[in-house]
């Protein structure tokens, strides 16, 4: 009976192989698909069963996990939830995660490959993986100033360190409380989320990096950069600056916001045109340079590029094929030009960094469960937007905007020691629709020599003209600059 027993053994071996192959398929090859299924509670329980790492500003956690005695073991709490919502995002049972909670999830949960050694140890010891920490580039004082300044308004602030691209402040207003969205009560989460969705102020939009607004006169910085780059203009070049500019190929005219000519005899130098925010001179300049030169210059500053900071920012854009009158209006940041606050801060930062635009970034360090530093972000160049000579000229032009032009609110900024700081800036006002107040902008750079901070403030529904932009967005920019320099 040996032969049939051997045959039976062969058959049983085949069954054994089938079982092993099948279970290998489940646990290795289809495991990810099974884990991704929406009714798989294990993923959730596992995520909430581990201590998720903190999101840090300096050494203080703005998001951390707190142990509870519920079925979901760890609760996510945000110390200054609304102020940092634009950075941290939320971590919700119902709606998933946003912000750094989403982009840095691998590190925060401890499943990143960076933790290979830790995980090996945990594997041998049979421990649960612990999450690592994420240190942001945010400077808490600058952030606080921006948050206080924006309170009650609808808008955004982004501040960047020009030499590196580090984001020092990123604030949205109105904001939301991530504590509620990250709670363990699905009903409360849903109710609050529905409320936020229904809110006409749209607090869930990450305004600093996602909201696209016409940049208005702040775009004149780009037009001026293109003018200097063309080699045909210097800050002292004289441009026509009448009270009204007849748009080419059309019977429409463009007026200065003052209603007056920009200089005696309707002529003005480039530096004065910027200082006074002379629409007619810049419209004329736009047509002289052409749409392609403007677009190329804007792209050198980062338009048409989607930045991941690592949160995904909207792409700022310059219109594709504007005709002559549209080019003229685009040159003053109207028509279809759209930019995020992040983008306009990058324009100022690039000018301030000898014309070199740095990649903006929000994550400074990734840390292990014991908070040892595993990786530090190194600054990287996005590209050269201007020659350093032209950049220096443009800084002086921006200083003129503060010292004798429209950004008067930034005069007299001092350091902690009371030293006067030269600040460069540009105001902007842009109409989004006829029946709504305009968008007020302030883009600034300080100190003018060796700048430490570039800031863009945008207040939607803000004002009527450059004076009101100065009055509404200006003080916020001033507070942010002063906080950063102290």
């Amino acid at each position, binding site marked *: *009976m040996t032969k049939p027993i051997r045959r039976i053994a062969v058959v049983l071996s085949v069954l054994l192989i089938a079982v092993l192959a099948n279970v290998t398929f489940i646990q290795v090859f289809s495991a990810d698909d099974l884990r991704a299924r929406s009714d798989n509670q294990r993923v959730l329980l596992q995520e909430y069963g581990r201590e998720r790492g903190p999101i840090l500003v300096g050494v203080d956690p703005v998001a951390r996990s707190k142990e509870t005695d519920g079925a979901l073991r760890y609760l996510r709490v945000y110390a200054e939830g609304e102020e940092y919502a634009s950075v941290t995002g939320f971590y919700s049972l119902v709606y998933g995660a946003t912000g750094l909670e989403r982009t840095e999830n691998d590190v925060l949960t401890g499943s990143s490959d960076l933790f290979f050694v830790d995980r090996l140890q945990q594997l041998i010891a049979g421990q649960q993986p612990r999450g690592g920490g994420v240190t942001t580039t945010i400077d808490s004082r600058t952030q606080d100033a921006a948050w206080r300044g924006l309170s009650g308004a609808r808008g955004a602030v982004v501040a960047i360190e020009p030499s590196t691209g580090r984001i020092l402040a990123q604030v949205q207003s109105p904001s939301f409380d991530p504590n509620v969205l990250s709670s363990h009560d699905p009903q409360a989460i849903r109710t609050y989320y529905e409320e936020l969705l229904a809110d006409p102020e749209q607090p869930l939009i990450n305004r600093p990096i996602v909201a696209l607004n016409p940049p208005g006169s702040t775009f004149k910085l780009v037009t001026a950069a293109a003018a200097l780059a063309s080699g045909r203009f210097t800050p002292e070049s004289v441009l026509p600056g009448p009270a009204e500019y007849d748009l080419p190929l059309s019977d429409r005219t463009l007026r200065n916001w003052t209603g007056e000519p920009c200089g005696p005899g309707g002529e003005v130098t480039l530096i004065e045109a910027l200082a006074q925010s002379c629409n007619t001179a810049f419209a004329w300049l736009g047509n002289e340079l052409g749409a392609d030169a403007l677009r190329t210059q804007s792209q050198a500053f980062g338009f048409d590029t989607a930045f991941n900071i690592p949160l995904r920012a909207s792409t700022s854009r310059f219109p594709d094929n504007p005709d002559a009158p549209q080019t003229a209006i685009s040159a003053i940041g109207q028509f279809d030009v759209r930019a995020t606050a992040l983008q306009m801060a990058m324009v100022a930062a690039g000018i301030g960094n000898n014309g070199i635009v740095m990649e903006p970034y929000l994550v400074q360090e990734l840390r292990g469960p014991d908070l040892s530093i595993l990786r530090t972000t190194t600054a990287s160049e996005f590209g050269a937007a201007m020659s350093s000579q032209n950049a220096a000229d443009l800084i002086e032009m921006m200083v003129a905007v503060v010292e004798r032009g429209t950004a008067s609110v930034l005069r007299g900024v001092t350091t902690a020691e009371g030293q006067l700081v030269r600040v460069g800036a540009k105001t902007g006002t842009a109409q989004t629709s006829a029946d709504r107040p305009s968008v007020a902008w302030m883009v600034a750079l300080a100190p003018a020599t060796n700048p430490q901070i570039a800031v863009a403030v945008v207040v939607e529904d803000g004002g009527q003209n450059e004076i009101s932009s100065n009055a509404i967005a200006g003080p916020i920019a001033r507070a942010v600059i002063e906080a950063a320099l102290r």
Partner: protein
Amino acid sequence: MKSTNVPATDTVTRPATRRNRELFLLVVAWGLGVLGTLQVGWATGEGTPQRFWVTVAVVGALALAAHVIVRWRVPYADPLLLPLATLLTVLGMTMIYRLDVAAAQRAIRNNSPVPSPDVYSQLIWFAVGITLFALVLLILRDHRVLQRYTYTAGLIGIVLLLLPLVPGIGATINGATLWVRLGGLSFQPAELAKIALTIFFAGYLVVKRDALALVRVRFLGIGLPRPRDLGPIIVAWALSLGILIFERDLGTSLLFFGLFVAMLYISTQRRSWIILGAGLFAIGSVFSYLAFNHVRVRVQVWIDPFAFADTGGYQIVQSLYGFANGGLLGTGLGNGYPQLVPFANTDFVLASLGEELGLAGFIAIILLYAIMVQRGLRISVAVRDPFGQLLAAGLSITLALQVFVIVGGVTRLIPLTGLTTPFLSYGGSSLIANWILIALLLVISHRARQPLPEVEPIPDNATQVVSR
């Protein structure tokens, strides 16, 4: 060249008993259980489990007692079977304890009374199992004695199978009528029936195999048995269908029929029995699929469990999620969520282990069974009498089929049927029956390797070296 006669200087060498190897492996198995239990306590935040050292000492004492009995009664028995069975039992107890912890923690969260732990009941069943194991070794010196009780065993097997249908003591749990309830104890008689019926099949087939091996009818080039010899297989088939229809127990039904066909094939060496068996199996399958809703549901759930994720497919879907969560190396004991699968410590104990020990641990467990079956089949090949051969093969095949049906079920290789996982599952009947099965295999293997009774040594002067 001149040939020389080699002197017969040696008498029969006594084979090694290899009992020390068995003892060493038993200590390893026990140690793995200790470490696993400590790991569970640590990972779940319970610290050292309650009554840990007592439990661990009792388990060690039971394993040691089994070893001593084996050393005494069946010294030439296979050295791997006892450690393998012990390791599987302690792994099962570790997982049962781990699920007790999960149930207790859940109860505390919900402010409900903490359920009594299952692991101590399992420990008691383990003690009963070892006792019966010892009794078999003490009473049964020679497995051939069992051949005398062929028909008694058959009768006992059938009665055990039918017991759950007796009104008053039979109980239907989770849709299957395979339980007997006496006093406070419930028992699954099918587990013991499988041993009784294997003895019956072996004894019956040893006698009838020559008749059953005769070929009379040729059909399409295949030699088929004579119609009058078809009786036994038809009876086995009808019985299996009966279990399926009246007790709604797909797993047991499959197990018995598969076992019978395999033993029929081994005893007659005729492939025609396999073909016939497969044909009857196909007919039975189609018939029960068409006739019984519960079979149809099982098959539909098997084909697309996710479509029934909230109803009939819930178990298998949760089981698959558990396996996926475990991945290659597992979550580690105490770190997974095996309690999300219903019946995590009985039918789905392998899914629980697959989640926490991962693919690596799961394959290791399956290989423990594979080695067990391989040792059983080796014993079958080595033993000298045909009854012993058939019995050892039958017992090994029962084990193999049962493991295949349950592993295939929880991993969706085949439709899910309710069978216990030998040694691992929580539950007395299964644990006891499988320990008896191991005892029988040990007796047979002892017989197979035992040296023949010593003959008078031939005096040295009877042979002489012839040299020139």
